[in-house]
Every structure is written in C-alpha cells, then in structure tokens.
C-alpha cells in the first residue's frame, strides 16, 4: 500500500482510543465528585424528591456502562443533554459558543504564525540586530502573562485608543466589521505569547538544520543561499515548528478561557468557567468534550502535516 495512505490510516486509527479515553474521563467527572453530585448541584435545600428526580433525569441510577453508552450515543447524534440551570438544550448553546472560541484561537494562531515564522528565520540567519530584537521580543512575550497583557492593553485603550472597544461581542454574520473590531484586543493578547514561542522554535530549529552537513553539501553544489534557507532549511525545520504550533494550539484553547472571561466574549471557555462555579456539571462536561475534541483534531492535523512534509516520519509511522 502507498506508505503515505498507510500513515494517514494508522494515525487516524491512533486517534480513536484517544477519543475514547478522553470521553470516558470527561464522562466520569460527574461521578467522581466527592459526595452526591446531585446534592452538590442542588445545594443544601434539596428535598429527597427533587434529588431523586434529578438523578432519574441524569440517568445516574443506571449501570455506569449504560450511562456512558447513552451519553456517547446522544453526543454522536448532536444531543449534549440539557443545561442544568436554564434547562435549554446544550447543542444550541454550543452552536453559539463554539464559533467564538474558534475565531479567537484561529485568528491568534494565524497572526502568530504570520509574524513568528519569518521573524524566527531572520533571527536564525540574519544579522546581530535581527537577533537582538527578536530575542527581546521573545523574552517579553514569554514572560508576560497573557491575561495581564490583556488588562494592560485595555488600560492603554482607555487612555489613548478610545475607538477600540475594551470588551463585548457581535457575531460576524451580523456585523463583520464590528466583530473584527471586538476581536482585535483578545487576539492581540493571545498572539503575543504565541508569536514568541513560534519565533523561538523557528529560530532553534533553523539553527539546528543550518548546522547539519547537508547544508554544507548544498553550498558545495552551488545552491543559492536564499534557496538553502527557504527551500531546504525551512522545510527541514518545519517538523518542529508544526509540532509546536499543534501543542501551542492547546495553550491557546486554555488562554481563550481566560481571555473570554477578560473581554466578556461568549465562548466555550467562559461557558465552562461559569458552569464550574454554578456546579452545572452537564455544561462542564459538554464544554470540556468540545474543547478536548478540538485539540485532538488539531494534533491529528499537525501530525498529518508533519508526515507530508517529512517523508521519514510517514515511513516510520512514529509520531
């Protein structure tokens, strides 16, 4: 069989047990809460009747495997259960929330990659000033906590850039311009640290590749420096860069939780935090499931991309 196709199939096959274990862990959350989760959810005023009613509603009295089966079956049909507080179906809630989180994370990642990769390359092959400046930016981006950077940006806006809204949200389809304006600060907040990591990784990977013997051999063939840097070295450095982008996507999803809270954006992250504080377990589960699945999909895509860039990876079948 074609080794690349085999690689794709094998990597897809590896994702299934991961999804399974992840879903089991998230499913178990509500069952692992110390004491009776229903009592915790309803508070101390709960009557035995209401407790029994909720237990029945959540099927907590069924055998565990049956509960899991029903939950997964529901999720696969788009039924995530009900919001415990508002009684609204969770699928609608998630349909509103997911695009917001996706928009922030994807925009931040795009910005970080667009800035980080070229700067990282310059930092590796450029002169002393290129190196100093990028190093300074990397130290800044990595040291400064994202939410504090967000707060400082808000402070700056309040002082000088009054036209930027400090918080709020409109859906893209209602008002594209307004939507993007609301996105500027949150995206910037997340992208700075991201860009710093990508610069650092790109620089390190490029330096590693440029020290390898095949670069000398390319020079000995008379290959132009530009081609050595951008065609050969960058392609070889792409594996660690793509891997870091994949891992950092997880960091972004975490950062989105904080940034959504900070800028009052109605995303999945804020949904989860609010739900934890309300002990609204069905919502916590649905939110975590969505974010974890997103992350697993991103990891899958990164690995596939790496496999296609570097034939050694796809041939070996090891990630």
């Amino acid at each position, binding site marked *: 069989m074609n080794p690349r196709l085999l690689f794709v199939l*094998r990597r897809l096959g590896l994702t299934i047990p991961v999804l399974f274990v992840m879903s089991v862990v998230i499913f178990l959350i509500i069952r692992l809460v110390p004491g009776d989760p229903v009592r915790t959810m309803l508070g101390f005023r709960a009557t035995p009747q209401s407790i029994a009613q909720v237990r029945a509603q959540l099927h907590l009295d069924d055998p565990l495997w049956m509960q899991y089966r029903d939950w997964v079956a529901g999720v696969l049909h788009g039924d995530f259960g009900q919001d415990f507080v508002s009684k609204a179906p969770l699928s609608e809630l998630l349909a509103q929330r997911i695009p917001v989180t996706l928009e922030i994370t994807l925009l931040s990642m795009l910005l970080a990659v667009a800035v980080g990769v070229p700067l990282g390359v310059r930092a590796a092959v450029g002169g002393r000033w290129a190196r100093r400046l990028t190093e300074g930016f990397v130290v800044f981006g990595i040291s400064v906590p994202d939410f504090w950077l967000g707060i400082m940006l808000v402070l700056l806006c309040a002082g000088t850039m009054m036209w930027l809204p400090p918080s709020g949200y409109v859906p893209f389809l209602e008002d594209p311009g307004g939507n993007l304006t609301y996105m500027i600060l949150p995206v910037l907040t997340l992208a700075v640290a991201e860009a710093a990591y990508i610069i650092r990784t790109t620089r390190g990977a490029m330096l590693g590749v440029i020290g390898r013997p095949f670069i000398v051999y390319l020079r000995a063939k008379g290959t132009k420096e530009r081609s050595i840097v951008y065609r050969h070295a960058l392609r070889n450095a792409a594996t660690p860069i793509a891997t870091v982008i994949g891992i950092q996507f997880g960091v972004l999803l975490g950062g989105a939780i904080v940034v959504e809270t900070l800028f009052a954006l109605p995303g999945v992250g804020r949904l989860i935090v609010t739900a934890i504080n309300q002990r609204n377990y069905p919502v916590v589960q649905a939110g975590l499931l969505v974010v974890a699945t997103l992350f697993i999909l991103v990891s899958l895509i990164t690995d596939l991309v790496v496999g296609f860039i570097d034939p050694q990876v796809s041939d*070996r*079948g*090891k990630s």
Partner: protein
Amino acid sequence: MTALLDVRGLVVTFPAPGSGLRRKRVHALSGVDLSLRRGHTHGLVGESGSGKSTLARCVLGLQRPDDGSVVFDGTEIVGLRGSALRDIRRRIQPVFQDPLGSLDPRWTVGRSVRESLDAFGVGSPLDRERRVRELLDLVGLSPDHADRHPVQLSGGQRQRVGIAAALASGPDLIVADEPVSALDVSVQAQILNLMARLQRDLGVAFLFVSHDLSVVEHVSNEVSVMYLGKIVETADRADLFAGPVHPYTRALLDAVPVPEPDARLVHVPLSGDIPSPIDPPSGCRFHPRCPRRVDSCSRELPALTPVEALNSTGHTPHRVACPVVLPARP
C-alpha cells in the same frame, strides 16, 4: 584441551524499529556455533548486519538469546541470574568500541577502573586503590591518570583505561567489540600491541570483533566470518587468509584495499547491497550476491561443515557453510 567458550545454535531476534501491531523482527543471529580456546584470540569479522556485535553481547550476558547455548568453562550462562551470573561476569569482561562512550564522563579514571573491584568487593578500599595503580601501570598509564576525567585523555589513553577496567577483575576472557576502529592507525598499532602483550603475559583469551580484516588477521589465532546472522567460514588464521573457500570470504578479502599499489584491485567488486536483517534472503543468506550460486542455494540453508582437506596447520578444523564449493562428501 576443552574449549573455554562454546557457543551452540545461538538465535537472537529483536523487534524492528517502528510501531504497529504486526511488527517485523530483526534476525540478528540465526543459529551460530563458535568455540574459543583458553588463551587464544578468536577474530570475528563481518559487515553491518552480520550480527557480530550481538554475538559479543550474548557472550557477555547482556543479550538474552531466543535459543541456543553459551557455555563458558563448563557453565551454561544463558538464563543465569543473580550471584551465579555475577561470578561468570567476573571472568568475562568487555572492551567497547568508543573509548569515550564507554567511560562514565562524571567519573574519574580511577573509579572507572575500580568499578568491577567495587562490584565484587575485592579486598579493602586501600587494596583496590593499589590495584588500580598496578592496572594503570600495566596498560602503560601513569598512576596520576587515576584522578583525571575521560575528557582530559586522548583516544588511545581512554582505550587503555577501558582495557585496564576490563582486566581489573582478572578475567579469563575479554570480549572486545571493535576496540580499535575509532582510533587512528598509529594509535591503533599501540593498542593492538598492548592487547597482544597482555595475552602473552596474562594468558587471557580474546573474542575480537571487528569489521577490519587486516586487524583481525593481525591479532587472531582463529577467525570466523559472519554474514547476515550466520557464520559462513571458520578456520585457523593462516588457513583462512591463505585459502579462503566460501565465496563471501573470498569477495570480502578481495574488497579490502591493501596498501600495496602492485596488488591493485582488479576483481569486479561484489555487486548489490547487503540485504536487511529484517527480511533476510531465504536459503543461503549470501545467495542473491553470490557469483557461484546454483538453484538450490535459495532453498537450502547450508550448515557449517568441516573440511579435513583444507586443514593444513592448526587444531581448528576449517569449516565452511557452502555446498557448492565443497568437494562431495564421501
């Protein structure tokens, strides 16, 4: 005289790199017999994938074979554990290829040389210190080398330390895996001389693994040639180099660039690549590259057979695993 070391039918496989459910296996050794007499040096030559290093590791008890036996001085060492294994290890010691990698960079030379003395609890700490100085002197280093670290020594000095460490427990057999291939020719000569002297003075036997035929020819009493997990020919050193029989041995000897311009390479070199030990060829492992193959070579795995007619001098019978080149059996 009985053999000090007797290896019979040794088979070793390990999982091929990579992952997956039906992982292939590397066939490192596929039934190997070898014997080594007390105080002799047995040279083991072969190219990559021949399994010569795996055989060395089995003898050292560092690799557990899938099948076969390794008898050392009458004791089966396959499957030994605990104190019985330690007793044997005291008598079989290794010298490795990379003299830097075989010494712990954080330890002083003295501590490395003392390592087996510490393990076996030989003598008092003061005795051990004295023994370390003796050993260093024996391999041509000065006592103050004991306080240095490996990075402060040259390649040749490090290998001397490696040899001193191997000698510390007073072994009967030293298994030397490519001990001089990381060294320059002039340093290599010093180490080979040292090993020859130690053998004369201490009567220690060597299993000498190398890819370099010239070195093996220089040091060995008997030589075995390996190809893809099998020994194809075993003989006294002089017999083997003067009258190689197996087509692979002949090709290998022909391929060695000798430093004599008058003996320029005129033979057509052996064609083709060495096959991977993951999927070794059926029948005789060498048949796809063999200039003398016949139809049956791809089906039958030839056994190592003694050839009385070829045994000119030594006590070791000349044995060859190739039915094509052998005279028909009576």
